[in-house]
């Protein structure tokens, strides 16, 4: 029953979303008023290089081939999918002729590390503290925290990260303000290298954890306030169960469940936030790569990053959705 009623429709949705996303990515450059080939040529010309018409034609042909824009749309579309399955996104323009996939592979561990750690930390932290604050919503500390969050929550990733960068990088010079590790150090599994990486990751991670936790804090606090006024809590109190046990075992646990679904829904935004934060701190992950790709007009690289992100995020969402029943004993998909 689980397979037919839940798994198959969910998998179907998963493939449909990927299909839709990748199709949008395929059509955007083709429907836009200027195509990548024209843009690249215009950019080369704007740098003042003289090109004679024969050369331009040769370049147009080469670029058309390179961007996978030759042949009919149907043919291109088919090729696009075939290449996607092979992980072949063509060669990069700004680091010619490195394949896009290799650039992405080098950047990926940094982004995955930053994203996973900060997402988990902020989710757990925001929910537990938010839950406690919601349970004790008449206490002074809860109100102070709540007021603080009212200032942090609306700040977008970029502005918050930049403020941290200025504050810690230039006013209190405690942490490195850019890069993933000290330049020139060989990656290794030694303690000093790991500490170096952690020191570099501190500010980007801090900015993501604070912003993420603020948003989880607020939603959990609201949910807990509502759950707290339900009958079963009063019943438990009358039954003489310890407050701490009621709070964690019954109230917060109940409130965290919808937050798992919300986590799945906001993963795309969190990824966007991570990419933006990386740009601020020139952290060597996908965001930084994206920034270089934008500044140099490297379409293959951008297409690669986008396609990969779509597949990765939808897969993560699927995983979160599928493990949800492990946390909620009421749902067993019988």
């Amino acid at each position, binding site marked *: 029953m689980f397979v037919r009623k839940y798994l198959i429709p969910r998998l179907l949705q998963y493939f449909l979303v990927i299909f839709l996303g990748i199709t*949008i990515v395929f059509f955007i450059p083709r429907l836009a*008023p*200027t195509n*990548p080939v024209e843009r690249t040529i215009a950019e080369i010309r704007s740098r003042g290089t003289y090109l004679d018409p024969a050369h331009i034609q040769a370049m147009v042909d080469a670029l058309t081939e390179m961007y996978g824009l030759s042949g009919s749309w149907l043919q291109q579309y088919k090729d696009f999918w075939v290449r996607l399955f092979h992980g072949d996104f063509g060669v990069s323009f700004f680091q010619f002729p490195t394949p896009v996939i290799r650039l992405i592979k080098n950047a990926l561990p940094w982004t995955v590390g930053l994203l996973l750690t900060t997402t988990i930390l902020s989710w757990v932290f925001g929910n537990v503290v938010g839950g406690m604050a919601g349970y004790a919503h008449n206490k002074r500390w809860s109100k102070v925290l709540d007021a603080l969050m009212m200032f942090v929550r*609306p700040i977008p990733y970029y502005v918050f990260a930049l403020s941290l960068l200025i504050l810690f990088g*230039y006013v209190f010079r405690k942490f490195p303000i850019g890069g993933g590790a000290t330049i020139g150090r060989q990656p290794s599994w030694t303690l000093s290298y790991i500490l170096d990486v952690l020191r570099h990751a501190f500010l980007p991670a801090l900015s993501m954890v604070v912003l993420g936790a603020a948003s989880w804090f607020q939603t959990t606090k609201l949910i807990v306030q509502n759950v707290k006024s339900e009958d079963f809590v009063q019943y438990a109190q009358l039954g003489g169960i310890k407050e701490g046990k009621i709070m964690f075992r019954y109230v917060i646990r109940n409130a965290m469940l919808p937050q798992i679904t919300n986590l799945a829904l906001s993963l795309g935004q969190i990824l966007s936030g991570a990419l*933006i934060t990386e740009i601020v701190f020139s952290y060597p992950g996908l965001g930084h790569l994206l920034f270089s790709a934008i500044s140099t007009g490297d379409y293959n690289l951008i297409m690669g990053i986008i396609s990969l992100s779509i597949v990765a995020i939808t897969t993560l969402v699927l995983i979160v959705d599928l493990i949800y029943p492990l946390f909620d004993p009421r749902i067993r998909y019988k």
Partner: protein
Amino acid sequence: MVMPIGSTLKELFRDYRFVCAFIVLLFLVALALLSFFSPYDPTIWYYAPRDLPPSSKHILGTCSRGQDVFWQATFAIRNSLIISAVAGVFSRIIAVAVGLVAGYRGGRTDRFLMFISDGFLVIPLFLIIVMLAMLIRDKMTIFTTGLLLAVFGWAWDARVIRSQVLSLREREFTKTAVLSGTGTMELVFKEYMPYITPLAFSTLINNMSWAIGMEMTLSIVGLTNMDIPTLGTTLKWALNYQAILMRRWYWLSTPVVLSVFLFIALYWLSVSISEYLDPRTRVQRVGGE
């Protein structure tokens, strides 16, 4: 839920957050309006000496491009507000249309539209916006930036509106109206709109805030028209001229501080309004404290 405007405002002004946000916003809008009286043209460079610290002639100093930071900031706020208003209003139109159709028609239409909006929620939209912005980079104006953001900013709010319509459709008065021969259009516009308008308005504020932040991000990665002063491009120019390293705080912090005030004010406004609209939290607020 549907109440006369006078008493609604009275109740809202009892909330200190609403009052603070309202005052800050008034101040920012006044700054934006001041730009119409600016003695300088924001697109011209070097009309003033470069890198002057704040003085009585240039109250926030001048930047490395030889422009007055204060007057440049008034234009920046004005343009950022216009972009967010364009984005907000157009995405509200899409959100209301999708929410109404999906909620009212139900069935296959509903599933299709919600599938699209789910897709929009899951896919990292920032990347898609970046890609589109790259291709129309030369044609980016305030208006097109707003429209671009509008195309991507409706998905969540369409869901909110849809669930409202779903519950309205089940109510008694819908059946009465349908049985007494009210047309769909009339029913939707006359009976449902009073319920949907407040929702559209409270989501509008959040959406405007999102649009301003997104515009800043797009400017930082260099995808908007750098000649139009907005909060994003002002910040980008300051960063381009190494304002952090050169310690030109008056230049760098002007867009940052202004945008922080703007974000917080918009957020407080929306929290206050949505708490007012949601009776559950309202009861808690009145009864609990």
